[in-house]
């Protein structure tokens, strides 16, 4: 098992760190979206879900204990994901000191090309999102525990809604390439099943964007009030 600790030395090992933390975060954003969609079930439903997130695991775990354990896992994952990405990006930039005068990409598209900057946008979004809906610092009328009202009032500002929509599109692009890369890096991909992994990445990133964008859109259209 000592070998595991030396995994990080190699470029592939750093990618494994990205893939494993990416998998944790990928699972999180899907569960998070499913939670978000409860806003369509009404005020009482989503506010009760908010209470559940704080009390989950009771009576074995106390108030907010599971929530904080989850938050720690997620924060560590985000930290390691960014750290590995930073180190790999520096290696990659150094590996071609003189650029081509002319280069035509054959395969990789917008999603793969914007992976790094898309990641930066997502990181900035996470900071804003926490200040907006978790601490309420940048929210105009934040009421702790009133999830429904916080969401509706938060998204009534069109600039905020547009930023959320842009961030969700960035996340979808990030996962379109990132989720597939995760399967490739973890070695799950092979010639027999690669279409399944590609399809899974495409479907999950599209569903995620549609599900999350539907909420600010519904508020702006007056469907949620």
């Amino acid at each position: 098992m000592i070998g595991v600790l030396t995994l990080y030395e190699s470029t592939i090992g750093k990618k494994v760190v990205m893939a494993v933390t990416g998998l944790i975060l990928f699972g999180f954003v899907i569960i998070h979206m499913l939670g978000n969609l409860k806003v369509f079930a009404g005020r009482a439903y989503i506010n009760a879900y908010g209470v559940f997130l704080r009390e989950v695991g009771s009576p074995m775990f106390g108030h907010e204990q599971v929530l904080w354990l989850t938050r720690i896992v997620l924060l560590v994952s985000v930290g390691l994901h960014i750290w590995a990405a930073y180190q790999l990006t520096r290696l990659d930039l150094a590996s071609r000191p003189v650029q081509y005068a002319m280069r035509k990409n054959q395969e990789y598209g917008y999603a793969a090309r914007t992976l790094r900057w898309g990641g930066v946008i997502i990181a900035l979004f996470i900071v804003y999102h926490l200040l907006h809906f978790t601490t309420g610092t940048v929210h105009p009328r934040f009421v702790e525990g009133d999830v429904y009202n916080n969401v509706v009032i938060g998204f009534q500002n069109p600039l905020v809604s547009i930023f959320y929509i842009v961030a969700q599109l960035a996340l979808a692009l990030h996962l379109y390439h990132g989720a597939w890369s995760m399967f490739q890096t973890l070695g799950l991909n092979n010639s027999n099943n690669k279409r399944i992994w590609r399809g899974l990445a495409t479907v999950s990133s599209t569903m995620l964007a549609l599900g999350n964008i539907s909420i600010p859109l519904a508020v702006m259209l007056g469907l949620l009030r």
Partner: protein
Amino acid sequence: MPSHNTLEESTRSTAHDDDSRPMQLTLNVWRQAGPTEPGRFVTYQHQNVSEHMSFLEMLDVLNEDLILRGDEPIAYDHDCREGICGMCGMMINGIAHGPQRATATCQLHMRHFKDGDTITIEPWRARAFPIVKDLVVRRGSLDRIVEAGGYISVNTGAAPEANNIPVPKPNADRSFEAAQCIQCGACVAACPNASAMLFLAAKAGHLGLLPQGQPERYRRTVDMVAEHDKQGFGACTNMGECEAVCPKEISIDFIARLNRDLIRAKLTNPSGY
């Protein structure tokens, strides 16, 4: 317009042995006198290109003109000119080995270009491929990766009966796909990160799929990956650019296989490594 078949694609034709008019091309070629000299693009008007020429023959004719003019001919690597040795290779209009898929530069024919085209020709660019001269780069870094583990250890003596070791047909086929790698370096040249992961994965996969490659399979993976990183290649970001330009169409599935073997080597310590 004469009809083409594979025989006519051989490398014998010259500019004047067919009835089609010669093409005229503008070439922007990277010229660099030596490893530490500054390089620059030089533009040449090539008036005498037959569509039957290979890309290298087109450059040969240009070089003859340059020599007659008393200029220094353009240096580029080549050897077999049959697409099997891996010596040739250059960036042609931003694509490694040019616009024709599954084709090494020597097998690219000028019929894939049009009269009046401008073609930009650059050497492979990577920190691990220092330029020797003009379009020639040193690719010894790939040899270092092979030296680190791209072999099997066998005792010398009488050759054993080959059929004593059964090899499943699918494994033999997959292994052969990887073994087609000619070490040209196009995967590195095309990779946005100048990573040699496809090359490395092909070499490790070729041996790792066969029974003879099993004893050293995980040690080989760990050592070759370490050497790859040490040589200054970048990391793979799963873009698939390498697969697209590989003259042997080696799949990035081999990279997934390499990743799997490295993870397994580190997690389970098989074969005592």
